[in-house]
């Protein structure tokens, strides 16, 4: 690869500046602000912030609402990830085997990822709306059976489905690429060895997909913690009765609805550490290990 060298360093600085500015304004500054908020408390009648050490964190970690938020976030992350990856793997296998209509799938399956989370939320709000949506039909058969605005677990199911639907596309693309990178002759050799398609999938394709599975698992879990905000906000608003109050949504509602900046900041620090840990796992283990030569 050729590199460009600049004689005068101010040109380099000038070219870097816009990017650095963006990172600074939208990442470092807010992060620093969050750290500041997390370790301080605003005085009740004004007069600046006072240093409180880990008090904010102690408060959060002893708050049962916070722990229920963690619990539902984990359920959401694992369920949405499993659902999205399972669905996308099946779909990718169909497309890989070039079953009828696979070209249409391929295009159709890439669209969802291009749709913003709030738009997904709105679409699913219609689908799952107990009065007007597709599910309202269920209620005409058995009244009151379906109402995610009242029944907690149904609300959780709703956001899981919407989140999974949005993530199917991304995983699908990776699975398809991974499947297509498995040499055809391997599958053919297994076919000659007597393995039927299902057997080949289990013995050959899935093991060869493990690097991709690990990669997608980490990416999807990470995304579920951060990218779920739009879906929760438009679909359930965290309700009913905090049933879908995911960590990322709770930060927002505590901070901007409850005006508890310090509590929200402490929560966002926790979430940030969690996401950083997952990213670390990805770099450390996923990128390096599970390679076949």
């Amino acid at each position, binding site marked *: 690869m050729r590199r460009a060298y600049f004689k005068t360093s101010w040109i380099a600085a000038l070219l870097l500046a816009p990017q650095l500015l963006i990172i600074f304004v939208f990442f470092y500054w807010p992060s620093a602000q969050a750290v500041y908020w997390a370790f301080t408390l605003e005085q009740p009648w004004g007069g600046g912030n006072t240093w409180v050490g880990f008090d904010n964190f102690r408060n959060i970690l002893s708050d049962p609402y916070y722990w229920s938020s963690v619990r539902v976030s984990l359920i959401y992350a694992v369920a949405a990830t499993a659902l999205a990856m399972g669905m996308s793997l099946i779909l990718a296998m169909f497309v890989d085997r070039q079953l009828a209509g696979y070209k249409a799938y391929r295009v159709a399956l890439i669209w969802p990822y291009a749709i913003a989370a709030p738009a997904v939320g709105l679409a699913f709000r219609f689908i799952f709306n107990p009065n007007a949506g597709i599910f309202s039909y269920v209620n005409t058969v058995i009244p009151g059976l379906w109402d995610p605005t009242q029944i907690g677990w149904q609300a959780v199911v709703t956001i899981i489905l919407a989140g999974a639907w949005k993530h199917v596309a991304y995983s699908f693309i990776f699975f398809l690429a991974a499947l297509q990178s498995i*040499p055809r*002759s*391997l599958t*053919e*050799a*297994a*076919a*000659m*060895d*007597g*393995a*039927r398609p299902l*057997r080949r999938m289990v*013995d*050959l394709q899935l*093991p*060869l997909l493990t690097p991709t599975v690990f990669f997608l698992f980490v990416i999807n879990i990470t995304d579920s913690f951060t990218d779920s905000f739009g879906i929760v906000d438009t679909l359930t608003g965290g309700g009913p009765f905090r049933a879908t109050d995911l960590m990322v949504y709770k930060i927002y509602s505590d901070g901007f609805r409850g005006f508890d900046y310090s509590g929200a900041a402490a929560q966002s620090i926790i979430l940030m550490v969690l996401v950083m840990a997952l990213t670390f796992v990805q770099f450390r283990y996923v990128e390096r290990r599970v390679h*076949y*030569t």
Partner: protein
Amino acid sequence: MAEIAIRNAGKTYGKTRIMQDVSLVINNGEFVVILGPSGCGKSTLLRMIAGLEDITDGEIAIGGQVVNRLEPRERGCAMVFQNYALYPHMTVAENIGYALKVAGMPKADRLAKVAATAQSVGLTEFLDRKPGQLSGGQRQRVAMARAIIREPKVFLFDEPLSNLDAKLRVQMRHEIRRIHNQISATSVFVTHDQHEGMTLADRLVVMNKGTIEQIGTPEEVYDRPASVYVAGFIGSPAMNFLPGRVTDSRSAVVLDDGQTIPLVSAIKPAAGQMVQIGLRPEKLTLAPLGGGALAARFEFAEELGSGRLYHLKIEDVPVSVMAAEKHSFVEGQTIGLRFPNDAVHVFDGASGLRLDLHHAPAAALVSA
């Protein structure tokens, strides 16, 4: 019994026809080599036998049973792929034993059989390695072992040696022939390498653009090539071709520069017919001019170690001569060429078919 009968097989991809009217019977226990240049449809034909490609026209029967609609696993064939197609995440032992595992053989029996098979191809010490940790030759052996262990009725090889270096290729060639003789399966071996074909085959099938040009023993194909195409493809250095016209007496051919080549009586061309005379470089000898020798102009010579390859021209037609003697000719010098009468191959100028071919090449070998 695993006789393979291919009857009028053809193949189209969409609207593109890449193979037509291929008919061939491969006897039980026979080693047949399908030979032809890259892209002529050899692999496709092999894969049609294996069940990896649809047979779009005609039919293929293995052991008397038409297999057109059978899955690969139902056909009893084992295949060695050009790139070996080893399972990268499995050890050598798992690779070799995979077919048995799929077939549900108990683990103890399977391991014993894997060990025995590995022993027979010299892989015992590599059983725990992954394919990525093996050399090309060792991978090739794993691929062979994986095919052998199933004791197949039919062995299919798709250019299995083309990724090996020259020395190893010769060695594996012997090995493959040894294994074939040992397990007495029917073998079909695809290659573009004529040496490989000549040395391995009981019978050669020469293909060209999706059709069979000739079927015969290596000797037959070399001695009596059925067409200009086969004559030019088999033999190295390649056969010389001299265009000419049959005399009115039908006993000789006049070349473009007026020299004549006498024909043996078995060849019966029409008077005035345009033909191609074929002469193998190794059947020509350099001789003094006169006394019926063909005159040619010397251009240059290539040293081969064991002898020399002399490049000459008759008019504008290049002619090469392989000879053990080492002459020092000067460029432009006229030299005489001699050859036995029966070394003259005569092909029709238009169709390229051999004139003294008494049988249609493919059809005669197809059993009803």
